[in-house]
């Protein structure tokens, strides 16, 4: 594919400069893509590991919790959990990984050292153990949220970068090359016809 241009020297110079820029851009983007993918693979491995771990732990916690629920009346259970003693909020910072902004979560715990918000008399031991597992897991779950978000954002960026790299590599640069070739050939052609013309005129002058 070749863009329609005037075959002039000026156009040729302009295009040659443009193709240099395009090639440099392509190289930079390609490097960025490689690095992004490298980081991404590391992160996604961590993501997978963390998720599997959390799903397993959560299952255990829920099993305990279900046990607790079956041993206690619904109202008592809800009442016990009604007023949590801990209060958690988070700070979100930004981290820049290869021009992708990913969230960085920092946890602020305001607590009572006691995670059990209830008296021990009416509740069962299974509830305690469920709560203990869960509270230990929260940090990990937030870590998962963070890393999973980062992975999603990076996947997006990689896709975008790849599209740009491909557009440069397979469309823009070849089309420019072709146009340059076209102009060069046209200019050469003009030159040749000019020479022939001059020779012809010279011959006519000499004969005349």
């Amino acid at each position, binding site marked *: 594919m070749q863009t329609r241009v005037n075959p002039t020297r000026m156009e040729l110079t302009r295009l040659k400069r443009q193709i240099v820029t395009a090639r440099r851009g392509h190289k930079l983007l390609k490097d960025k893509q490689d690095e992004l993918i490298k980081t991404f693979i590391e992160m*996604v*491995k961590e993501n997978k590991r963390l*998720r*599997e771990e959390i799903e397993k732990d959560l299952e255990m916690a829920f099993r305990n919790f279900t046990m607790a629920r079956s041993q206690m009346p619904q109202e008592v259970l809800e009442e016990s*959990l009604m007023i949590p003693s801990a209060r958690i909020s988070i700070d979100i910072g930004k981290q820049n990984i290869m021009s992708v902004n990913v969230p960085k*979560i920092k946890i602020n715990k305001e607590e009572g050292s006691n995670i059990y918000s209830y008296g021990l008399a009416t509740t069962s031991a299974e509830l305690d153990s469920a709560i203990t597992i869960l509270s230990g897991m929260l940090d990990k779950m937030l870590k998962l949220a963070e890393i*999973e978000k980062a992975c999603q*954002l990076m996947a997006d960026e990689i896709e975008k970068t790849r599209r740009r790299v491909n557009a440069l590599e397979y469309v823009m640069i070849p089309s420019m090359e072709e146009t340059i070739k076209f102009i060069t050939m046209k200019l050469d052609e003009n030159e040749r016809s000019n020479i022939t013309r001059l020779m012809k005129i010279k011959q006519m002058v000499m004969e005349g």
Partner: protein
Amino acid sequence: MSMYKIAVVGDKDTVLAFKSLGVDIFPVLNEKEANFTITKLAKENYAVIFVTEQVAKEIPEKIAQYRNQMIPAITLIPSNRGTLGIGIGEVKKSVEKAIGVDILFGREGEE
């Protein structure tokens, strides 16, 4: 840096367990409620929203909507009825999107 909150959205029995940790819980019963709740939470100061897979299954568009935004981060968790594999599927989707082929999970079959 400002303060953000954490929310857990899911069926009542699942989210109740999280109550004592100090995160905010939002029990939802159906698709409509779930959509509404998540929209509301995203507008408020919730940066991390854990959604159970059972609920997420019903509202894939809503979940996808926040995929490309930095905040909120919607993370799927299994409910008390066990995992449906959607969460891990999302990770897989990311990999396929980024690399084109599934390099992490394909190997599992051989092992």
